[in-house]
């Protein structure tokens, strides 16, 4: 799925749009084209037997959407729910899933040339879905590649939830 390109972005250096959110004090970004909507925190019904990174399910206008604990998935310390907590509904690999974040910030425009490769000095599986980093507005954005958020087996497992 392609990101939205601005008019003046020639194919040489396209400008891409990213939805940014906060998690454990750091700012992350996801491709705007993969964000369906952002929900206020609502009660999440746990599912017995679900993988540890699955918080539960929510009812979205009659549809059941699985919610993933992003902190757990990213290997971060657990956090507390606040009035800024949001559930971001995403579409990745033809799957609709929600992720729980501390807060949603804004949509930023990033040039392709501004995105740098992220360091990868660990053996953790979680590092595989870091697409890159970008310095914007005096902070470093960590860009997430949603398609790699879960493996094919994990996506299949999620379908069964």
């Amino acid at each position, binding site marked *: *799925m*392609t*990101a939205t*390109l601005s008019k003046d972005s020639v*194919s*040489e*250096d*396209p400008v*891409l749009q990213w939805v940014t959110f906060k998690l*454990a*004090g*750091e700012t992350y970004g996801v*491709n705007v*084209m993969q964000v369906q909507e952002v929900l206020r925190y609502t009660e999440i019904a746990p599912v017995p037997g679900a993988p540890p990174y699955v918080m539960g399910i929510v009812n979205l206008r009659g549809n059941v959407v699985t919610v993933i604990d992003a902190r757990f998935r*990213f*290997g*971060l310390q657990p956090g507390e729910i606040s009035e800024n907590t949001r559930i971001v509904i995403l579409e990745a690999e033809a799957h609709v899933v929600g992720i729980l974040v501390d807060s949603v910030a804004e949509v930023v425009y990033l040039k*392709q*040339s501004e*995105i*740098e*490769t*992220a*360091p*990868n*000095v*660990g*053996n*953790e*599986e*979680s*590092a*595989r*879905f*870091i*697409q*890159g*980093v970008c*310095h914007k507005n*005096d*902070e*470093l954005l*960590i*860009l997430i*590649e949603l*398609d*790699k958020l879960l493996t094919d087996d994990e996506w299949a497992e999620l379908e069964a939830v």
Partner: protein
Amino acid sequence: MLANDKGLRDYFDELLCDLSPGSSENALEETTQETTEETTEETRPGPQSRERDDSPEPAPDVAVSVPPQPTAQRSQSKAPPKGFSLKDKRQNKQLADKQKEQLQALLSKPIVGIASALETKAIDAAADRKKLTTEALAKQINKAPIADISAKQAAPELHEQQLGISRAEAQLADQAYKAASTWCENGRPEWAQEHFEALLFEVSGLKLAVPLVALGQILPMEQGLTHIFGQSSWFMGVLASPFGNLRVVNTALFVMPERYDESFLDSAAYVISVHGVPWALAVDSVTQPIKLDPNEINWRSERSKRPWLAGTVKSAMCALIDIPTMAELLIESDAGLNNAK
């Protein structure tokens, strides 16, 4: 004038003096007439010469002036000059007609044909250049790491070039540091064969020295680090600096994990960047550089463990870090710059 056949015909007619009946006065006939009149003029003596000449005047010549006559009469009365006989004119006309045909054929040729040949050459040359460029880039690029497919589709060439450039730079730095980290037979590294300057700094109560060679800048950690999940424990985070994003090493944990104190995360105030690579060492404080004599250093003979530790500085009682070797290790460990996913 040459745009149409009639204009072409008129042009050549005028140039070659066509003799078709009823045509207007031709230039050749006029030239013939002028020649005759000049001859007549020359035989008539001028008034000045008459005045000067004291000798008896010769008998005046009768000026023969031939009034202009119709062309037919003139042609009958006088023989044309050499080269302008009827036969010659017919030959000239045939030649002119032939030239007209050649010119028409040339003008009727599409100009696009000529340009397309040139364009084809230019396109081929550009394609060759692009092929060479792509091949050169392909040699630098091993395999794409984590990459956004959409970004690749949007700007595949730029994306590949960026990856190629960063990987190429890392590879070049790696090669340079490989050379610098070579130890000589005298048991000293390449950079310590003669007197060298070193920077002293403190890390969690431990004093360390690093050679100024291969050091970059000293930067404060005022803005704080951006932590990236999934990295090794000795990776502190990324620091945004005017010189680019620096990957900061937890020097205390890296150098002495057995004595590591987590308070270093709060006490670390500066980063010392390594020249040529996006890596930096986090330190508590930095002191003035000192000049060291290689003879005053206890060089390590066995470096299988902790290869980045060069030796001990006797005068300062501190450990000397082999920065080129450390840089080489950092580059090799960074899969984001080197390896494929």
